[in-house]
Every structure is written in C-alpha cells, then in structure tokens.
C-alpha cells in the first residue's frame, strides 16, 4: 500500500499512479458524489498517524493536479494529461475536482503576519464561477468574511480544522458553510490550506419560510375566520327565521371564505417561489404573448368595470426572455389585476413592452415629477446584458412617496385606499418581487398622486442558443481545468 500525503517526495507522475492503484476498486463509487469520494479515499489511503486522511487526500489531489498541470504546460504535454488518463485506468482527478458542485479552493501563504499575502493556488470551476476568482488572485478579493479568513488562517498556521457559517448579502445572497483544513507545506515552503464551501441556502431558507408562513397565515386568517364565526352565531340566533338577512349573511360568508382560500393560495405560491428563488429558471417566454394571454384572461374583470386596455406590444419573438412561463404570466397578471382594481370606472390600463433595453434605459424614469423608487435592482455586473421591459400603468389615485419602499412587503396595504369589493390578499407584489428576483430582473414603481401609478419590470432577454451552449469559464484549458498562481 503506497503512502499518500500531499508534500510527497515521490515524483508527481509516479505519485499519480500510486493513487490510481489505491483507487482502482473504488472507482465506481466516485460517481456517487464528493462524500463517497472522500470516504473511499480515506479507506484506500488509510495510514496511521495521519489525522485527516480524507481532507488531506482531497486537497492533495488539488496540489497533485496543480503540479501535473504545471508540468504539463511546461513540457507541452497537456494533451496526455486528464482526458487521456480517463480512458486509461487512472481516474481523472483533475476533472473530478474541477466538476465538484461545491466550490473548492487551495490557499497558500508564506508568513503569518502578512495578513494579505494569502493567495489561491487552485480553485475549481464552481469556485471560479461563484467568486469570480482570477489568476493568482489574493484570497481577500474573493472572500472578505472575517470568520472565513480567520478559519483559513487557523488552518494555515495553526494546523486546525475549522467549520464556520457565512451568510452572503443582497437579493441573491447565499448561505454557506465553510470548511477549512490544513494541507501542510508545498515544495516551495508555502503553507497550504484547503477551503471547501457548502451551499446551505435551501436548507436555511426552508426553515425560515416555514416559520414565516405559519406566523403570516395564522395572523391573516384570523380576521375572516372571526367574521365567519360571528355570522354563524347570528344565523343560529336571531336571524334564524329572517330569509332576507340569511341570504345577505350567507353572501358575506361566501366572500370571506373565498378570501381565505385566495389567501392560502397566495401564501402557498409565495413559499413555493421562495424555495425556488435560487434556482435559475429554465425555458423561454415571449413576453408579448404572455401579456396577450393575461389581457384576454382578465377581460371579464375589465368589462365589469368598463376598463379598457391600451397595449403596445412588439411583434412575436422580439421580446423573448429567459424564464418560467407560469411565473412570468403570474407577474403580468398580478400587475394588470392591480391596475384594473385601482383604475376608476371607464378608465384605461396601459400595458407596454419594450425589447432590447440596457439596464440603464430599462429602469429610467419617465415622468420627472413622479415619485419613483426601484424596488429590486438586478446584479449589474454583466454590462452587455439586454433586458425586455414591461410597464403597466393605471390611472388610479397614485401612491404617496412614503409608502413606496414598503409596497413589496407582505400584507402591506396603503392606508385609506380601496381596491374595490374584491379585496386583495396583500401578497400580489411580494410574489412579483420574488419571481423577478429569481429571474435576475428588476422592478420599479413610479407614482404621481392623482395621476396614477406605473410598475416597470425588466427581465434579461434570452440569449441565442449556440452562444449559451459554448460558453465556458474564462481561461478554461482543453482539459477543463485552470491553473492558478
């Protein structure tokens, strides 16, 4: 059984063969994911006295990969590296590490007091994509969290294992658990540490959503429930023999029951959307066709109020966005439905779609006199992104400036505004915001009191297919691996 430890004096190529031998039996299990990989590695390379065989081996693979790559590039022999090894008997370590779904990084440092000298010597695909790590980057340019930096320091210079939690910021912020492990020294005398991040966003979000759901639902359902039980009491009491009152009360009860069921529907769909908020939507939606469908569907409601639509839609195929059709339709429906509610009788609701906007023009103000606020701003790091904009305007009473920041808050209702007999649930705009966030789009509102309100949505346009398929990480080599440092 060969001994395996990262600063091995064995020549890298030989070392790779030794590893391969140890792994040969375990190869089929590797596909089961990183956990299996670590476990098998630990079994295969068990060596008394090594405290962290699993972590060391995983990290050792990183360094091995690095050395191999360095050699490969120097000796112009890259073609024979990972891809060729896969067809042979050796498992392609480079490809395994590169394709791990978890961000994995190896950090090197020379001096303990040089706080900013920590730099990346390896980062796999997930790490590069998520943290925009460039070649030879310093650790702080990708990770600023003091807890994570401390953990890495303790692994580098204290030889300790650390696990810390780290919560990202912003509308698309994620929750991570960071594991850091010491990896000893490399042949240049630098201290090495392994940093692996695990995405815990969904787990924590599920917990939070459940708590919120219960709190919101119980609070909001109490009102209609109280009114229902009040009417039941009256119907069993003195209104028992009065058919006129009975009909009236039953009508109110039905309306309240419908309100409760709408509320539950909205709460359910909100929590569903929240759970998927970090999963990018797959599919393409023609915004203009979706808007047409919504306008057709809401025609009866509009007819009841004698509200007409004034829509300016581009030709089909001009405003195609990346998205989940049902959700996009829900966004348009919620906005148009609101507009109908707040527009006075015989008013006009305007629906406009503009394709091919930049983020700047998509979120630009239309009326300088109006109160205006961006309710959601997408991550603007990609400057070439083109957006399709949707604007829905009503001629309602308008919303005062101080209410604007709170519009997308759950159950927030602007005081003294009547939305007609069909009362809303107070969740419509919250749903809109969460859906748009999932689609990496933006939302803004413009309102002039007495004149009306406009809600603007902009979503990234769908990219042409071949371009998307060919997209690879910056600097990716044919083996799918990038060398850093």
């Amino acid at each position, binding site marked *: 059984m060969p001994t395996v430890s990262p600063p091995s004096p064995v020549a890298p190529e030989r070392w790779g063969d030794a590893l391969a031998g140890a792994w040969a039996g375990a190869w089929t299990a590797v596909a089961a994911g990183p956990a299996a990989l670590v476990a098998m590695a630990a079994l295969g390379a068990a060596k008394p006295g090594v405290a962290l065989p699993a972590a060391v081996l995983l990290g050792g693979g990183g360094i091995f990969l690095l050395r191999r790559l360095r050699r490969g590039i120097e000796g112009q022999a890259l073609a024979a590296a990972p891809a060729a090894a896969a067809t042979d008997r050796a498992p392609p370590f480079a490809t395994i590490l590169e394709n791990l779904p978890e961000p994995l990084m190896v950090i090197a440092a020379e001096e303990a007091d040089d706080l*900013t000298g920590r730099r990346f010597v390896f980062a796999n695909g997930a790490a590069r994509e998520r943290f925009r790590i460039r070649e030879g980057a310093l650790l*702080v*340019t990708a990770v*600023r969290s003091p807890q994570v930096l401390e953990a890495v320091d303790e692994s580098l210079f204290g030889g300790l294992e650390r696990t810390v939690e780290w919560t990202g910021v*912003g509308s698309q912020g994620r929750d991570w658990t960071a594991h850091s492990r010491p990896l000893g020294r490399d042949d240049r005398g630098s201290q090495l540490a392994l940093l692996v991040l695990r995405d815990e966003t969904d787990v924590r979000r599920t917990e939070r959503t459940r708590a919120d759901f219960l709190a919101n639902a119980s609070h909001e359902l109490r009102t209609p429930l109280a009114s229902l039980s009040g009417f039941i009491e009256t119907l069993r009491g003195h209104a028992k023999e009065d058919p006129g009152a009975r009909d009236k009360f039953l009508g109110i009860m039905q309306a309240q029951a419908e309100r409760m069921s709408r509320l539950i529907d909205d709460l359910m769909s909100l929590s569903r959307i929240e759970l998927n908020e970090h999963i990018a939507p797959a599919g393409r939606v023609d915004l203009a066709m979706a808007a047409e469908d919504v306008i057709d569907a809401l025609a009866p409601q509009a007819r009841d109020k004698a509200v007409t639509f004034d829509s300016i839609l581009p030709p089909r195929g001009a405003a195609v966005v990346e998205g989940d059709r049902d959700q996009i339709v829900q966004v348009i429906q919620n906005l148009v439905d609101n507009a109908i509610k707040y527009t006075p009788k015989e008013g006009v609701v305007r629906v406009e779609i503009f394709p091919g906007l930049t983020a700047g023009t998509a979120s630009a103000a239309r009326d300088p006199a109006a109160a205006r606020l961006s309710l959601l701003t997408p991550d*603007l790091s990609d400057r070439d992104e083109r957006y399709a904009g949707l604007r829905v305007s009503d001629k309602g009473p308008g919303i005062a400036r101080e209410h604007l920041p709170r519009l997308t808050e759950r159950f927030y209702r602007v005081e003294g505004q009547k939305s007609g007999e069909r009362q809303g649930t107070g969740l419509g705009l919250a749903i809109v915001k969460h859906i748009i966030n999932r689609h990496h789009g933006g939302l803004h509102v413009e309102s002039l009191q007495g004149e009306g309100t406009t809600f603007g949505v902009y979503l990234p346009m769908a990219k042409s297919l071949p371009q998307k398929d060919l997209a690879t990480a910056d600097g990716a080599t044919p083996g799918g691996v990038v060398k850093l440092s």
Partner: protein
Amino acid sequence: MTEHTVKSYGEELSHLTAEVTRMGGLAEAQVADAIECIARRDAGLAQSVVGRDERLDTLQVEIERKAFRLIALRQPMAVDLRHAVAALKISMNLERCGDLAKNIGKRALILNDAEPMSALTRSIERMGRLVQSRLKDVLDAYTASDVQRAIGVWSSDEEVDEHYNSIFRELLTYMMGDPRTINACTHLLFVAKNLERIGDHATNIAENIHFELTGEEIISQRPKLDVIAQ
C-alpha cells in the same frame, strides 16, 4: 526563492488594496451583526459588536501607516498615487461605518430593556439589509476595480433615503399613538439615522473608487432626498 522576499512596488500597492478589502469585510460583518442584534434582540452579539470595533480602528491606523510609507518611500505618480490616497480615504470611511455599527450595538443593548416592537424592528432590519448590500456592492466594485458598479451604488443612495424617510414617519406615528414608546422609538430613530449614514459612507467610497480609477470627480448632482424639507 528565499524565505525573506523584498516586496516589489506593485506588490506593495496590491497588498494595500487587499488590506483595505480585509478591513471592508470586517466592517461589513460589524454592520451585519449590528442589524442582527436589533432584529433578534441578541444582547451577547451586541456586546461583541461593541468589543470588536477596536480591531477596525487598529486596522485603519495600520493602513494609514502603510499608505504614508508607500507615498513617502516610493513617491507614486498619477494612478498609483490615487491608488494610495483612495486606500487612505476608503479606510477612513470604513472606520466610520464601524463606529456607527458599534453605536447601533450599544443602542440594541438599551432597546433590549424595552418591550419588543417587531413591526418597527422589521422596518429597521429591511433598511439595514439594503444598506448592507450597498456596502457589499461598493466593496465588490473596489476589489474588481469596476467603475460602473461603483457608479451604480453612488446613484442609488436615494433608495436608502426613502427607507429612512418611511421609518421616520412610522416612528412619529408610534410615538404620537403611545408616549410610553418615545424612549425606545428615539433610539430606533438614531439606529435608522446611523444606517443612513453608513449608506452615505458607501456612496463616499463609491466616489473614491471613481476618482481612483478615472482621475475625475463624479460631477453630476446625486439624486438626494431631503427628509427635513418634506
């Protein structure tokens, strides 16, 4: 390569940036924890926010020393000089952010003695998250040397002001409704004001980044909301 290496000029410059970024991370964490201790009524966290502020002060002094040293010994010109000066200025702004976070922590300790007012603390939390993301964006812009991103932060300060305005009114309504809440509400008002100031520091940092990268001031008037005038 020997153990002891003499750092090159370029390395010294990039390490100054790295040090400011590290300090930024610490300031970010302080602000995040300060908001957390208001939202969760966490006295232990509030204590540690207050206690940790010293580290930011030390870091700032260190960055200042390094920047002066670099300017004195290397006599940088043009973009390099702006680089050193920006590090100085940004670290000063970050240090102020830390002070404001510390102040929020202190107020959180006092607020823990009062009755919980979850509706108000939720509004504060929401504003806090917004300010936090501004700070994050501007530090991202700094590490990536991204002028566009910095301008994005600079021009969207209005949103923070809107939130402050909204909280200001909310607090007034509360205090008028129940004078017993005046004590706690006043502290919350200061917390909101501190958050708004942190947002201002983020825009200052954005201005510093713009100057560092382009050599020009941002001239156009920033959209600004005046709460007092309304």
